Each structure stands twice: as structure tokens, then as C-alpha cells.
């Protein structure tokens, strides 16, 4: 085992990790920063995000409106102090990215353009064609090359968080290129490892989105918060699950069922807006959870279109015209053509809801600090409290940079004021763990591909768009069974270099732990809120009992313990979450209510 010592270790080289690294390096150039990533940073899944990043810049837009949209979008499960901080700093971070070279799409006069997005009352989504995540990631990665104090450990798989004396002591990783474990001793560690969408069989995510960091923090005793909230993106390609951006709907795309009917009008998102004139928060610009749930109902009614790859509805972009499509949505045109043989200018694209984003994750406060001193978490792997029970599109990319900066600065301050020294105990513990994990190579009898497939199926079935106690209990039992089988999982490959069989099995272990936290958190929440919707009697929101964050605590044997923590509510009291005409009727004109005063019932600011 090799030992490296640094001031800050960042696990994950995506948008959040890179932004944190740059922030830490800028805050204190004397600190040594190690950026650990299991893939080269430009492969991180941030690269696949398409639609955009939100930041208030428009004339008619305001911080208050972005705040209100986010809190109601999250069905009032958002920590409002975090939301306030976020909306205040989002535009600033977008401008920072602009200065670093991000090619934001522009208006004719050279100013940045913004577009409409689901659940947002005003256009405030900054975009770079339909490849925002790609441009954001490459901008951040290339900017990080400016800083001499950021050292990278590329293609190092993080295995375990090392804890000593009730604080973080470092990260144990495995160097795939040279074929041996590497311990990075660091007093401050930032987890930025992304979500866990690959737990579901059909998902928009890339291979690497396996919840590694969530599992590491979880096993180290940190709570995973709000794990039951998994977002189904309404428009993924059937079969592969490849993402078709919400930006399509922002540009005016419409969703049609088997009968060519814009069915969303039947689900509280109407009345129907004219084609080519999208209206914020109406119809196709409603929030993602509502759209995915509408599909589910249509499917039950038999109104969805049957394709060789599964049931779907039609996303119709034909009215936008080929020229506009190729300018604003070029990637979508490419994807539809390549993977389905469909030209969006002449045919509608078949789409269906696909598991996409994990709102839940490592519990953090507004400073991105976790309950474990020295450990910070940011990005999709964290539950910062920003998204609540349902994330609005384009808030996630913005979160990466707004909170990424905070995490970097916080970790830098902590590393400077509370440095750690080398410790024999830490090294011995890491050595043992490394040896134990490496010894899995060449052993076992249970095929990991089978465990992975069965996990995906049971999660899709029991913890999908709509849930029942029965379904969830079956999934919980199945996950427990899979964990037992995992104890004897087979790793055929014994080569120490680029052993992806073994790496896949390590990731599978993370997925199983995270899945268990998800299903048990879901069982515990006896209400329907945001993207956690039940059909078994708990069909409404229950603010009395469940206006609370769920917390899952790891136990070495058996199911996690679930407890609850209050939601930070400052100015926006829980109200009815409504969109379309119902939403417009429910919105009272903005009042000058003092913070802490409760707004009238049914009104949202």
C-alpha cells in the first residue's frame, strides 16, 4: 500500500469536485489538494447533463421567485436557509463560469440567454446549446489545470473513508493503473461522488453512477438523508434510458399519448397552452415528478404507445422546424437519429420516465459539512436540503458550483486550522481494509451480473414512481437476500491492473447498501410528497407527521435505523403545491410578510 499525505482529499472529479478543488486552491494556495477520481475527470457524469443551470438574471425575475419555485417544487421539504443561500449566489457562479470560458448561449447583443424550464416561474436557466453539463465540466476541468496545488489521482477507485479519533483521517483508494491500494491521509475530505441511479434497471445514468461516496460515508456512521426521493425524468429513451433534455419542453415541445392528446391537461397541469407558446409551470413545463406520475396513470389506462422497447408517449418537436432544432437542440437530434432512427423534425420521439437523480444523499448543513468532523459532501451525493422532495431541472448543475465553492472554502479553512499528523493506527486500519478488499479477487460463487440485474428489477418494481407497503416490503426482503448472496460474490479476474470485474463488485456493494437505505426510508414515510408517491392509503401529504427529513443510519447486520429531523422553514410556510391554472389561482400577490410570519393558507410567495 502506498501512503500519500495531503491537506484536502476530494473524492470525485465531476462538476462539484472540480469546483471545490478550484475554490480550495484559490482560498489557500499553500494547501495540497488531491483530487481522487475513478475515471478521468472529463468522463464524470456531469458531462451528460444537457438542459442548463439556473440563475436569476432576467428583468422580471427575482431571488424571491426562484426561492419560491424551488421550495414549492421540493414540496416544502427543502431547508430554506440553504435555498436562500443558493438562489442568492447562483447567478454569480454562472458569471464566474463565464469568465472561465464556459460558452453560454447568447442573445444577439452578446448577453447571456436564459430559457424556460420545468417548475420555474420565469426563464432563468442558463444553457450552452443542449450540452450544458459537457461545457461546464470541460470548463471546470481545464480551469483546474491552472492550479499547481491540485494534484490528481486519476483512475483511483475510492474504497473506504478512514476515520480516527472521531474525525476523518483520509481515504483508502485503489490505483487501477499500477495495481495497488493507495491511502491518502487528509484531515479534510470532500465527497463529490455523484448519485446512485444505476441501482435502478432503467436509468439515464452512466456506468459510474453507483453511489460509492454515499455508501462510504454511510458505513462511516454518517446519516443518509431523504433517500426515498428518487427523481424519474419524464423523458428518457425507452430501452436505453438515454436522457432527452427538459430543454426540449422549455423550447416548446409537447407530450402526446396514443390518441395524440396532450394528456397533461388531465392531471392538474392545464389548461392546455397553445403549441409553440409554452407557459411556465403549465403543461409540459410542470415539475418532473408530476409529469412522470401522469405517465404512470396513462399507462394504467392503456393510453400509452407500445414500442418494441416498452411503453412510451410521444415528445413532439416537429413544430419547431429543422433549423431551430439543429441550433438549439443539436444533441437531441443526434441521439434520436442514432439510437431510434427518428428525425425530430419530421417524427415525434418516443419517451418514458426513467430513473435519473437522487435527491437524497449524505446529510449536510448549509456549509456542506456532515456530522463527521472534517467530512464535507457536495453535489448529487449529498443531501444539502436544496431540492427537498423533488428537484427542479437546472437547479442541480447550479448547485454543483454554488455549493462546490462553499465546500472547497470550508475544507480549506478546516484543513488549515485543524491539521492532522500521520498515524500508525490509521495506516494499519487502511492496510487491513485494503488487503481484505483485494483478497476478493479470484474468490466467490455468486455472479455479480445476476445480483445487479435482480437489484435493478426489484427497485424498479417496489421503489418506483408509485409505491405500496407490499411492494416496498418485497423489495426490502429482496435487497436483504441480495446482500447475503453478495457476501459470497464472485470475482473471476485476478489481474491487479485495471481489474474492472473487481471494481464492479465493489460498486455493487455500494449500490446494495444505498438501495437498502432507500427502500427502508421509503417504507418509513407514510405519506405522499414530491417524488415519493404511495397508492396504499397514504396518498396525501401529511405535514403533521412527515414535514421532516428521513435519516438512515447504517447497521452492520440488518436493516438501517430510520429517524427523522426537522426541516428548516424560514419564510415559506407549507402550502398547496399547484401548477397550471390551479397554481396561478393559488398564488396571492407578493406580500411584505416579515420572515417567520406565516403566509395565508394556500398562498405561496
Amino acid at each position, binding site marked *: 500500500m502506498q501512503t500519500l*499525505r495531503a491537506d484536502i482529499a476530494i473524492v470525485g472529479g465531476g462538476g462539484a469536485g472540480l469546483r471545490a478543488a478550484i475554490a480550495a486552491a484559490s482560498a489557500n494556495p499553500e494547501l495540497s489538494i488531491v483530487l481522487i477520481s475513478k475515471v478521468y475527470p472529463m468522463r464524470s457524469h456531469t458531462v451528460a447533463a444537457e438542459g442548463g443551470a439556473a440563475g436569476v438574471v432576467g428583468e422580471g425575475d427575482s431571488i424571491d421567485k426562484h426561492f419560491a419555485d424551488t421550495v414549492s417544487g421540493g414540496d416544502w421539504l427543502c431547508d430554506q436557509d440553504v435555498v436562500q443561500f443558493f438562489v442568492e449566489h447562483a447567478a454569480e457562479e454562472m458569471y464566474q463560469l463565464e469568465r472561465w470560458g464556459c460558452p453560454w448561449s447568447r442573445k444577439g447583443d452578446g448577453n447571456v440567454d436564459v430559457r424556460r424550464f420545468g417548475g420555474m416561474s420565469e426563464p432563468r436557466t442558463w444553457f450552452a446549446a443542449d450540452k450544458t453539463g459537457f461545457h461546464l465540466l470541460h470548463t471546470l476541468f481545464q480551469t483546474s489545470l491552472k492550479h499547481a496545488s491540485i494534484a490528481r489521482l486519476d483512475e483511483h477507485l475510492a474504497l473506504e473513508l478512514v476515520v480516527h479519533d472521531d474525525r476523518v483521517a483520509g481515504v483508502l483508494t485503489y490505483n487501477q493503473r499500477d495495481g495497488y491500494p493507495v491511502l491518502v491521509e487528509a484531515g479534510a475530505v470532500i465527497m463529490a461522488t455523484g448519485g446512485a441511479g444505476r441501482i435502478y434497471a432503467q436509468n439515464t445514468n452512466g456506468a459510474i453512477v453507483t453511489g460509492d461516496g454515499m455508501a462510504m460515508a454511510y458505513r462511516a456512521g454518517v446519516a443518509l438523508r431523504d433517500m426515498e426521493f428518487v427523481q424519474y425524468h419524464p423523458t428518457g429513451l425507452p430501452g436505453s434510458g438515454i436522457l432527452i433534455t427538459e430543454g426540449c419542453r422549455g423550447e416548446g415541445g409537447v407530450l402526446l399519448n396514443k390518441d395524440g392528446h396532450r394528456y397533461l391537461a388531465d392531471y392538474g397541469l392545464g389548461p392546455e397552452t397553445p403549441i409553440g407558446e409554452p407557459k411556465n409551470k403549465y403543461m409540459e413545463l410542470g415539475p418532473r415528478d408530476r409529469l412522470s406520475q401522469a405517465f404512470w396513470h396513462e399507462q394504467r389506462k392503456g393510453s400509452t404507445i407500445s414500442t418494441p422497447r416498452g411503453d412510451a408517449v410521444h415528445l413532439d418537436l416537429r413544430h419547431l422546424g429543422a433549423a431551430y432544432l439543429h441550433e438549439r437542440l443539436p444533441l437531441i437530434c443526434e441521439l434520436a437519429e442514432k439510437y431510434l432512427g427518428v428525425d425530430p423534425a419530421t417524427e415525434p420521439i418516443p419517451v418514458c420516465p426513467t430513473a435519473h437523480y437522487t435527491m437524497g444523499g449524505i446529510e449536510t448543513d448549509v456549509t456542506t459539512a456532515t456530522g463527521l468532523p472534517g467530512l464535507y459532501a457536495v453535489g448529487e451525493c449529498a443531501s444539502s436540503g436544496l431540492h427537498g422532495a423533488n428537484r427542479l431541472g437546472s437547479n442541480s448543475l447550479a448547485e454543483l458550483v454554488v455549493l462546490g465553492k462553499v465546500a472547497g472554502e470550508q475544507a480549506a479553512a478546516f484543513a488549515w486550522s485543524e491539521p492532522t499528523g500521520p498515524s500508525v493506527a490509521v495506516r494499519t486500519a487502511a492496510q487491513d481494509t485494503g488487503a481484505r478488499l483485494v483478497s476478493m479477487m479470484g474468490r466467490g460463487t455468486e455472479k455479480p451480473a445476476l445480483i445487479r440485474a435482480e437489484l435493478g428489477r426489484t427497485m424498479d418494481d417496489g421503489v418506483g414512481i408509485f409505491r405500496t407497503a407490499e411492494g416496498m416490503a418485497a423489495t426490502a426482503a429482496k435487497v436483504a437476500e441480495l446482500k447475503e448472496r453478495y457476501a459470497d460474490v464472485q470475482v473471476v479476474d485476478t489481474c491487479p491492473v485495471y481489474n474492472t470485474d473487481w471494481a464492479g463488485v465493489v460498486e455493487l456493494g455500494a449500490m446494495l447498501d444505498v438501495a437498502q437505505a432507500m427502500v427502508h426510508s421509503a417504507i418509513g414515510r407514510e405519506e405522499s410528497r414530491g417524488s415519493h408517491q404511495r397508492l396504499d392509503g397514504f396518498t396525501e401529504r401529511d405535514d403533521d407527521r412527515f414535514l421532516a427529513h428521513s435519516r438512515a443510519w447504517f447497521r452492520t447486520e440488518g436493516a438501517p435505523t430510520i429517524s427523522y429531523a426537522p426541516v428548516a422553514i424560514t419564510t415559506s410556510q407549507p402550502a398547496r403545491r399547484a401548477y397550471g391554472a390551479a397554481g396561478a389561482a393559488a398564488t396571492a400577490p407578493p406580500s411584505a410578510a416579515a420572515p417567520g410570519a406565516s403566509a395565508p393558507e394556500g398562498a405561496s410567495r
Partner: protein
Amino acid sequence: MSASTVSGRAAAARSKGSDARPEALVVRDGAAPVSARRPYRAPTSRTWFLKTREYRAYALREASSVVVGLFVFDLAVGFVCLHRGLDAWQWWVAMQTRPVNLILTALSVVMSLVHATTWFQATPKIIRIRRGRRYVADGWVVAQHYVLLLAFAAIVYVWLGGL
């Protein structure tokens, strides 16, 4: 290692400017295990230019320069002979009818065309003319070259008295 040593390294790294290697700041405690890497590099084949159609087309383009170059050398010799007087000139003219030279001349006609067309085809990559939010289509850039070529040829033809 003490914190002061680490920050000392940081200061040294910074003073070297952005060329400083980030690895200088990270402390390595103890020796690393032996690497299990054994990368394999297949040598580039000597006849790589025959492997794909694109490579063969490239090789032809480059070869055309050689042929055209030889022909230009032949003409240069002719100029020198012209300067030297009638005997030398007649010798050179007689040389042109030798089989080798006839072949070279015929080949040069073909290769000049190859050379011209391949380089004309390549010009849109170098010459980008912006019209508003688009670039002028490649076809127009290539066409311009042919137009210029024909115009130049016509001028020379007329100037030399329509031989």
C-alpha cells in the same frame, strides 16, 4: 513531515509559476509498492500509408508533389540550356522525346491535376469566411479556386498569343 515542510514545498512550487508540478506538494511517505504495469506498444508499420483508403489517397497527394517537382526540375534544366545556347537547347529538346521523359511528362499532367484538386479540396479547412452566424459553404471556397485557376490559365494563354 511537518506542516512547515509542506508549505515550504508549496512556496517553492508557486515560485516556479504554473509550470510547477502539482505532485510536488503531495507528500509521499515511504516507498511505493512495485507497479504491476507492463504496457505494450505495437510498433507503427512501415507501410502504414497503404493501410486505408484515406491513407493511400494522402500518399498519392504527397507523391504528386514529388512528380511535379521532378517535372519542374526538368523545366529548370531547360531554362539553363536555353541560356547556354543553341546546342544545349537542342540537346534538351531532343531529351524530351526520350521515352522516360515522355512518361514523366504524361505523369506530370495527371499528377498536377491530382495535386491541384486535392489541395483545392483541402482549402476550406484553412480559409473560413464568416457570413453572419455561419461559414460560407465548403463548395464555394473550392469553386473560387477553380474559377481563379481558369481565369489565370486564360490570361496566360492570351498573353502567350494563343499558341
